[in-house]
């Protein structure tokens, strides 16, 4: 039983305690400008809510997470279906799609910042194809930049989703496919009626990790837009990083608590699903 001690001691000190601290310090005026810390009740929440920051950051985070979950899974799934057969070309292609997964998210962010500049390569390619000058500021649009950044996030992680869908496709027994074919089902029908329901565990895992990974995202947004333009891509972690840097520790803690509660709220069904799946296995 003492085998549990090291792991749980570490978890207690470095994970559980800070989380509990979150619930305490979100209600204080802790800051970098003075040494004493006083309780202030719900003041931090009221301030953040009345300035509109709280709700806009929450909305942006949820929108970002939802977009990433959709894009990453659609791309990953499409790639898995495309590269399913075990040919030499497909094996090489899979390795190529894994390169972004290994790259630092910061590096990916800088890479796309360069690609998407108004005079960057993407616009140059579009101008060349359309035969007219094109200089859209992909990362400077108040409405659509969040979608572009979510696409970049999905580009980085789609290789991982692809691998997990590939593994899911491989678990489907050949005789099930055979039976569907003998019954006269078309390829299209076989695909949607037989194969996709059997992919459910892979979908659960992929959607959950994409959703939660992007809610806790930071580096791609920081490296591409830094939260701009006009703070329209400022997800919770960007806000926490910015206010922490300004010495407004209590505000950063408050947002950190908000993020915790948001994820916890969305996570309970997910934990339930993961554990249920485990009981089956």
């Amino acid at each position, binding site marked *: 039983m003492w085998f549990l001690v090291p792991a749980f001691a570490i978890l207690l000190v470095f994970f559980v305690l800070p989380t509990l601290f979150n619930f305490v310090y979100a209600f204080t005026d802790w800051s970098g400008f003075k040494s004493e810390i006083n309780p202030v009740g719900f003041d931090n929440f009221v301030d953040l809510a009345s300035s509109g920051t709280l709700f806009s950051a929450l909305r942006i985070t949820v929108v970002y997470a939802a977009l990433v979950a959709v894009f990453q899974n659609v791309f990953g799934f499409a790639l898995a279906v495309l590269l399913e057969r075990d040919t030499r070309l497909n094996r090489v*292609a899979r390795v190529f799609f894994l390169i972004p997964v290994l790259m630092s998210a910061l590096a990916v962010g800088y890479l796309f910042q*360069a690609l998407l500049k108004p005079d960057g390569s993407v616009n140059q390619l579009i101008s060349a194809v359309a035969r007219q000058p094109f200089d859209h500021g992909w990362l400077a649009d108040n409405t659509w930049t969040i979608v572009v950044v979510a696409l970049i996030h999905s580009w980085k992680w789609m290789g991982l989703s692809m691998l997990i869908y590939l*593994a899911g496709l491989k678990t489907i027994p050949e005789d099930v496919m055979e039976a569907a074919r003998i019954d006269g089902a078309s390829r299209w029908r076989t695909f949607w009626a037989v194969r996709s329901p059997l992919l459910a565990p892979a979908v659960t895992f992929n959607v959950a990790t994409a959703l939660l990974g992007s809610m806790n995202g930071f580096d791609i947004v920081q490296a591409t837009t830094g939260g701009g333009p006009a703070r329209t891509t400022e997800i919770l*972690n960007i806000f926490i990083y910015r206010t922490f840097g300004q010495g407004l520790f209590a505000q950063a803690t408050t947002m950190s608590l908000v993020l915790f509660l948001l*994820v916890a709220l969305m996570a309970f069904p997910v934990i339930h699903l993961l554990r249920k799946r485990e009981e089956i296995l």
Partner: protein
Amino acid sequence: MTAGAPHRSRPGRQGTGISDARIWTRLQPVVAAALVVTLIGIPLWLVLVTAAKSQGEAITPDLSWPDDWQLWDNLRQVWTDADVPAAFLGSLLVVVPTVVGVLLCGSMAAWVLARRATRLTAVLYAIAISGIILPPAVVTVVLLLRQLGLAGTVVGMIGVYLGIYLSTVIFFVTGFVRTIPTSLEEAAQTDGASPLTVFRRVVLPLLRPVLATATILVCLYVWNDVFYAFFVIGGRHDTLPLNLFRVASAGLYLNNWHLIFAYVILMSLPLIVVLAIAQRKIISGITSGAVK
């Protein structure tokens, strides 16, 4: 989107399933190659050619071939100016103890959690794996580290990473231990081996595949992490991502895309070399852990 390609072409052909399949077999390599070139090839090409250009040429990065190939000079300039060796060492100093610690503590705990089915272990397991999903409290952990005297130190950073990634390891390993039969451990126990010996000699070797998966994932996350590092050691200890961030945001380097991309190459190379050598193992490792 790509899955739809063969079916869209159906009305044109006489619509039998066989010719459909044949078109797809012909078309698939073309589509796959085109996607690799546009989605992966163009971005990587941009990194490579920009990293090989002179400063003047790299001010607006584009896909053109550099007039003067100076990749090697740029790499050398970044290597010395940005102090890459120190950052590289700093990264290793954090990654290696984290991986060793997380695997050791995690698999010890997972073994017990998998083998004892009591109420207490069920609760402990739920607490342990909740960290997979719940975000760590980044701000207050800094306060805690200050109180412990570990703020800004490598030990503090390692502790924070251990706290974050233990849950992932415990989740993966517990699932794996449950699939291996208990007979070997029981045999060793009746032979009078202590729990520690059983763990070291019997259990740990059996865990090799799942530990390999966990190693890959934890390495990937910790090697590339910049968010937690900002809070815990920002400015006092250098790692590669922190250093890249400083290089890229320093006014001195603004618009010095050739140096930023030279850095990206230097930083990504170790992981890409590992991928090239061990791709089959990595791919099967990641997938077998996630979907069994």
